[in-house]
């Protein structure tokens, strides 16, 4: 009896699967036909895109400055002068890697500032043609982004690579972040703990950022903030409202770990990371970016340090010194304001002296 059981079961399964086999073949045929349709639709979409691009590029001048290539409609926009101002800085930052711009032309649409007509849609960067040279050069530096050459860099930065060296205000902003960010990693970094700086900037492998960035109190506040939303699940909101806020750090951690990747706010933002990249380029010289692109994938700290040809610790120390040196000037008493106030006291006092109120009749 027991010897016959497996054979019986096998026969039953075969009998049940016979009609399914026919269905699978039919479904596969339908899926294949859908694939053909999708490929056809994609070809049409690509054709449409290339036609639109060709239309946008048509009738445009080509301006080349260094490796920068601009396709721009005819207008008084001082693009060549601005590009001539911007290119040396871009080249100094990216070094030999800047030649990549030759293969990545910028499509510029100079827009009449006085027109009421709608700006034509498209991929072109729209700029008013009465923009002056200096702001236009700054804009060109901002759009000179080679971040797409290294997706890991772009992900880590959380924004575009801006090839700048004059980020005094940027460093000052980072100083304020270091002092005020509700993160123990940022505060320890401010006090000189290089490992904490590494954590706060996500320079090493960040398997559990909630514990590396934040202390228990900070995690409690973060969990309360993140899950105080109608989009958070009811159970999680309940947990956040009770267990976590009542002091259960393990529940807070569980909640924060359940957040989608990238949702947990880093203690130091894009600005801080961009200043670190800037420090690396300043330390390593013009070839830094090229070397960075050549480094194998891995933690961002070691890649930046290798590109800058210094140790990771000394790169971080250099960055931290730059940030601390850019401490913003406190604002309570502007010197000019004090003198102006004294002047107004004298002015109004003199007005009082000249009053005629007591010439009573």
């Amino acid at each position, binding site marked *: 009896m027991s010897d016959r059981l497996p054979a019986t079961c096998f026969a039953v399964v075969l009998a049940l699967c016979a009609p399914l086999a026919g269905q699978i073949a039919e479904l596969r045929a339908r899926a294949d036909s859908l694939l053909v349709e999708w490929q056809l639709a994609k070809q049409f979409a690509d054709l449409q895109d290339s036609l639109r691009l060709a239309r946008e590029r048509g009738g445009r001048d080509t301006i080349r400055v260094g490796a920068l290539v601009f396709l721009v409609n005819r207008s008084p926009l001082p693009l060549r002068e601005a590009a001539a101002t911007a290119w040396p800085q871009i080249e100094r930052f990216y070094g030999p890697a800047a030649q990549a711009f030759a293969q990545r032309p910028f499509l510029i649409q100079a827009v009449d500032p006085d027109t009421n007509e709608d700006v034509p849609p498209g991929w072109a960067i729209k700029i008013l043609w009465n923009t002056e040279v200096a702001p236009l050069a700054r804009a060109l530096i901002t759009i000179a982004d080679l971040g797409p050459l290294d997706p890991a860099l772009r992900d880590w930065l959380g924004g575009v690579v801006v090839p700048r060296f004059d980020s005094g205000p940027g460093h000052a902003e980072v100083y304020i972040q270091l002092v005020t960010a509700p993160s123990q990693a940022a*505060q320890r970094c*401010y006090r000189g703990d290089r490992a904490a700086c590494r954590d706060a900037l996500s320079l090493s492998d960040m398997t559990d950022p909630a514990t590396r960035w934040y202390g228990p109190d900070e995690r409690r506040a973060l969990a309360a903030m993140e899950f105080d939303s109608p989009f958070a699940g009811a159970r999680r909101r309940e947990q956040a409202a009770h267990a976590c806020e009542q002091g259960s750090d393990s529940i807070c951690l569980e909640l924060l770990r359940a957040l989608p990747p990238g949702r947990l706010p880093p203690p130091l933002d894009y600005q801080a990371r961009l200043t670190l990249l800037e420090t690396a380029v300043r330390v390593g010289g013009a070839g830094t970016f090229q070397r960075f692109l050549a480094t194998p994938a891995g933690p961002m700290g070691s890649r930046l340090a290798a590109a800058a040809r210094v140790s990771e610790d000394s790169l971080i120390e250099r960055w931290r010194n730059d940030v601390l040196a850019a401490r913003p000037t406190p604002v309570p008493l502007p010197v000019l304001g004090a003198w102006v106030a004294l002047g107004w006291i004298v002015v109004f006092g003199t007005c009082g002296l000249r009053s005629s109120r007591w010439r009573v009749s």
Partner: protein
Amino acid sequence: MFRVVLYGQWKWSRIVVILGTIAGFALPILSVQGTTNDPTSAMKAGELLSVIQSWGVLYPVLAAAIGLLVAIATWAPDHRGRHVLALSLPLPRWRYVLLRFTAGLVLLVPAMLGVLAGAVLASATAALPPGLETYPVALAIRFALALGVAYAVFFAISAGTTRTAGIILGLIGAVIVVQVVASAAGIELDLTSPFLAVVMNLPGPLAIFTGRWMLIDV
């Protein structure tokens, strides 16, 4: 002569001076109540700056209030007495007004010192997170200047005739009326913003009142 004028003004405005001094002394101390050495209940740097900034709004308000009340108290008895005392004194008009103005400025000193003492005491007792510093002297100097400007403005207005005050108020009212009418008619006309920009930004007379009043900052 100055002592007599000062004594008279002190009698008329002592309540304002005393209350203003107490308020000026208390304000910085109250603003740092959230700081503590206990790490479990201490405020984070960002929170502390936010609280200090909120309290900071009260410094220019206090300066304007004390300046206004002392300036009114300076002239009120003269106005009530129809300036008989001033006219009976063997003094040129400008000298009498100068005595009144200077005496009023002297009466503002206790409030200025109150803020300085309060700010120094608050700075000495506050437990600050790393990276933050206190600026008691700068805050007290700024308060003194704002107090001086407020007093001078209201002194000049009080010393003027009713007609002068009417002209100033009329001009301000006219600007507001024109702005309202233009907005109602859909005309793009912005008179109030340029006016406020002139008055509130440097080198405008009220620029000292604007901006952040921070006893504690980075």
